[in-house]
């Protein structure tokens, strides 16, 4: 059924870009907001841990590794699980209880192809994009904090940042982000389409979608760590 929906490109092709804009581009501000403060806190935390024991340029290493491999994708994913998961579940849930999904079917459209596929594809593509921005901004925020508050020079920070850097650090985070996007959007869609019982049902299923989306992110995070590290 899902493969059939995916193959029905005429149903979802025109909606892909608007959904990418809605679910991805519009999520950039919240992701960057989180990334800035994560970078600041990580730099301060690293300084607190390393002072007197480890050379302070390791602050760059910790900020870079942690943001790229873990906190960037996971915190962005969590924020987007709330924003995107709730958005999708509430929209589709409302369509379901107001018979718009039935109407779509009677007009000869497959709701999975028309509603689910563009949202899942858009989130799968855009979560890594948003996460990449968050990674960059998080590292920059850590660098600015280190330079201004920790008496660390830019060369020292970048020395630490490059010391343990591997290209895998980035793609590992982005692969995770793509899987988070697929999971969050799919759960939102399925919960939305399973809604019944009017406004109360929409509220209940929206909450479930957000909670399940967050749980899925944590499970997938552990899965990728086991498989790729």
């Amino acid at each position: 059924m899902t493969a059939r929906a995916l193959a029905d490109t005429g149903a979802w092709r025109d909606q892909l870009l608007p959904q990418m804009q809605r679910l991805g581009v519009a999520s950039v501000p919240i992701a960057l907001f989180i990334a800035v403060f994560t970078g600041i806190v990580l730099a301060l935390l690293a300084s607190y841990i390393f002072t007197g024991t480890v050379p302070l340029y390791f602050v760059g290493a910790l900020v870079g590794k942690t943001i790229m491999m873990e906190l960037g994708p996971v915190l962005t994913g969590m924020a987007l699980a709330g924003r995107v998961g709730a958005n999708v579940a509430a929209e589709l849930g409302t369509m379901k209880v107001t018979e718009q999904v039935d109407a779509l079917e009677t007009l000869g459209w497959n709701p999975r192809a028309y509603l689910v596929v563009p949202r899942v594809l858009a989130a799968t593509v855009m979560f890594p994009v948003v996460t990449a921005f968050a990674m960059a901004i998080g590292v920059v925020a850590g660098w600015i904090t280190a330079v201004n508050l920790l008496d660390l020079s830019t060369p020292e920070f970048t020395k630490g940042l490059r010391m343990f850097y591997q290209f895998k650090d980035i793609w590992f985070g982005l692969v995770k982000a793509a899987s988070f996007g697929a999971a969050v959007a799919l759960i939102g869609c399925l919960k939305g389409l399973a809604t019944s019982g009017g406004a109360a049902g929409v509220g209940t299923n929206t909450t479930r979608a957000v909670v399940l989306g967050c749980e899925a992110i944590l499970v997938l995070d552990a899965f990728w760590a086991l498989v790729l590290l």
Partner: protein
Amino acid sequence: MIRLDGVVKRFGARTVLDGVSFAVPEGRTLALLGRSGTGKSVILKHIVGLLRADAGTVTVDGHDVAALDDDGLAALRREIGYVFQFAALFDSMTCEENLRLALARRGLDEAEIAERIAAALATVGLPDVGPRYPAELSGGMRKRVGIARAVVIRPRYILWDEPTTGLDPVTTATMDLLMQRVRAELGVTAVVVTHDLRSAFAVADEIAFLHEGRIRAHASVTAFQASEDPIVRQFLEGRPE
């Protein structure tokens, strides 16, 4: 022709339809009456394949709806216009886009699509609402746009789900005229689910009365009005239990 034979539908432990049978011949209009919650709208959803019966068969044009594959069901739905109780317009789209969605994938060129949309909106007396969103319209106007969306495909069958519920008497009378006009212009076979006796008597050729999951009475309008069945009489006279 639309035909139901012994249709049974259960939702959990509750049996909503318990062996419903009736037929609507080509070009005729059947009004399906009954108290709230008796499964009238459920019957419409079986006809268009949104629900599957637990037992019995629903056939349209001789095709068993439950046995159709996705392509067969899509082909059948291209022949059926469905007017939802609360219009079920896509609220993220303008009225014109709602109608355009109904016409998409039918191999029509842009000129014909535009012509059909204009004609359908004119039929329901709302030629200028195309650029407006459903939220900008009154309930009665939304219902009429819902009708336009159903007739724009020029269907052979129309299923009307409570077309006059919640409307004032004047708008209800307008809606009755509209249903008659659609029938005259398109020659459709129709099933009308309604509580509104006056509306049912105005638009239908036959009345079927659903009670406790079964068709309690099925007759011409005049015969139904003269029915001596106590349950039918109670409904006609609006007497409390």
